């Protein structure tokens, strides 16, 4: 559980998953691991199973075979509700678009993980609201009016930064980002990735960044071709 241990933040082995009704497995990953504090760029074309892989890591999907460990916890031995708990406690997620509950304010969106995880709430410090505001400020959203405005009134770029703050709050060990920059323009993309990496690094979190856009590759510690990783993919 402790992130000072030498064990990787994410490790998977012998992972196989077949969508019902399909002959070939979508996932067939013999081994994968990512250390704490590291950032990995995972690339591959759309529809190659990247999102399915993230869903499996996030514990939403229960792969029939294989073993996944998040911060040292073996997901495969857990039931659905317990996997949800592990996700709440240890994983921050960022999606392509529509990351925010549209009618909640930016700050309340950032604080969402604290509603579902006592651990994240405790890690967010004595005043989670202040932590949220600090994260928002670090991500360039220090206008107090933004904190309370409903998320739907924010620009896409602002929304993605709020999503990043939400993924980071309460210092989860793992950040999973699924094409979070695809709706942003070129300048915004780089700015966003730089901010996200810096925050993840200072929190000691492992960042797994999935995209089809290889131009982003140089911004990460390492990169990996998903199709090479996913040996069983058709």
């Amino acid at each position, binding site marked *: 559980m402790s992130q000072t241990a030498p064990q990787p933040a994410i490790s998977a082995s012998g992972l196989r998953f077949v969508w019902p009704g399909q002959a070939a497995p979508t996932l067939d990953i013999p081994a994968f691991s990512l250390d704490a504090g590291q950032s990995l760029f995972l690339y591959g074309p759309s529809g190659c199973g990247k*999102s399915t892989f*993230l*869903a499996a890591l*996030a514990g*939403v*999907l229960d792969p029939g075979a294989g073993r996944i460990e998040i911060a040292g916890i073996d997901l495969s031995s857990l039931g*659905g*509700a317990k996997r*949800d*708990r592990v*996700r*709440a*406690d240890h994983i921050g*997620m960022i*999606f392509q678009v*529509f*990351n*925010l*509950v*549209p*009618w*909640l304010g930016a700050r*309340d969106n950032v604080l*969402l*993980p604290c*509603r*579902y*995880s006592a651990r994240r709430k405790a890690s967010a410090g004595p005043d989670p609201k202040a932590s949220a505001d600090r994260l928002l400020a670090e991500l360039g959203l220090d206008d107090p009016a933004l904190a309370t405005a409903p998320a739907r009134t924010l620009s896409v770029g602002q929304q993605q930064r709020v999503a990043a703050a*939400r993924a980071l709050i309460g210092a989860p060990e793992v950040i999973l980002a699924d094409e979070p920059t695809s709706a942003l323009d070129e300048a915004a993309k780089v700015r966003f990735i730089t901010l996200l990496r810096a925050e993840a690094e200072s929190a000691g979190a492992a960042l797994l960044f999935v995209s089809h856009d290889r131009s982003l590759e140089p911004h990460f510690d390492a990169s990996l071709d998903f199709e090479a990783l996913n040996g069983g993919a058709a």
Partner: protein
Amino acid sequence: MFGLAFGSLWNRRFLAALTILSIALSVALILGVERLRNEARNGFANSASGIDLIVAPRGNSVQILMATVFGAGSTGTGLTWDTYQTVEALDQVGWAVPMQMGDNHRGYPVIGTERSYFDHFRHSGGQMLEFAEGRPFGAGESEEAVIGADVAERFGYGIGDVIVNAHGLGDVSFDMHDEAPFEISGILARTGTATDKMVFVSLAGFDEIHAERTPPEADPFAAESIAAAPDAPAQDVDHEGADGHDAEAEHGHDETHADGEDHDDHGHADESHGEDDHDHADDAHGDDQEDPHDHAHEPDQINAIYVGLKDRRAILGLQRQLTELRTDPVSAVIPAVALAELWSITGTAERAMLVMGWAVALAGMIGMIVMLSATLETRRREFAILRSVGATPGSITGMIVTEAALLMAGGILAGLALLAAATALANPVLSARFGLSLPLWIDVPQDLGILLGLFAAGLVAALIPAARVYRMTLADGLSIRL
């Protein structure tokens, strides 16, 4: 979860408000009907609690009850003084008070009766009438009146004020009895029953209203008395009329009941007459009633007799005996039985209203299900986001149920407020028209039961969209489908 559910509803506040409104309407309707029904029943039952039997000219028992105890409508022609004396003399009868009706004071019924009415009448489960101010009208005098609390309040009357009565029951009368003014001698304490809306005068006073004029044709008993003997003194007319009735009744009686038993009974009743009088005089003496039993004034016609029994177990026998009375054809009405009859008539309307109330409740809940279900599709994104930050399908389902609970609670509170507002508006009318005053807020466990039932039903109904959400969130996982 509560905050999220509330926020989510607030985000859809227009739809939520409509849903709450429809639930509120059903709550107000159901509770309102229930309350009206209870109050009406209590009010009516309270109005007649001391009276064992009401003797009136033969007729429909509900009509007799309404005309006498509630001063609404009228009884048939009238009873002779002989009938009163016969009834009063019956062995089983503890007390009997003659009643005259048919006049009004500015829309409030005027009752002619004897002083003993105030001793015998009971309301609200056995309470005596009490005087807030003053005293009963004088026994022999005809110019005094006792008024109910509502009458006093409505017109601001006090002791010593002089009032004038009108003939008939209508609110507006062109036939004012200016020649027979009454001075108010007493004001009754509020009872919450029909008594509050009545004006009581002595029998002599009541007759005084009619004494010096030719009554219109529309007045049944006055017309009859005129027809019988226009110029004769009251008592003579009475006697003649009674005799005639007697003969008729006797005839019918002999034909139908040839056996000797009835005759024996009759004889017994006659025998007891003297005894009864004696008893009464004794009683009255003990009560320090100033004018015990000699009726100062014997009117031509009375409209009804309130009867109290010595032993209430004899009520059915007496009722039968009274219907065979020789003086007048009468009905002897047991108030409770007549009330039951009345409720069986109004019951259909009550049930219709209640069914309507529950139908509105059903519609409100269907509206809620529709609202919750219709927004599920557009909220899939929201659910996926919540799942990504750790919400379990169970907690998202719980959120939907919480939303339903909030809607129901909001609807119930709004319904209570609506009902309180409607009651506050309607109370003056209800009070003036029917003597009912409804409580503004929930006051009986029964209301609470209904509200809890509605709330539970709403939660059960919410399980339909909740089950969909559960399956949806399980299937969707984190993928956002739009």
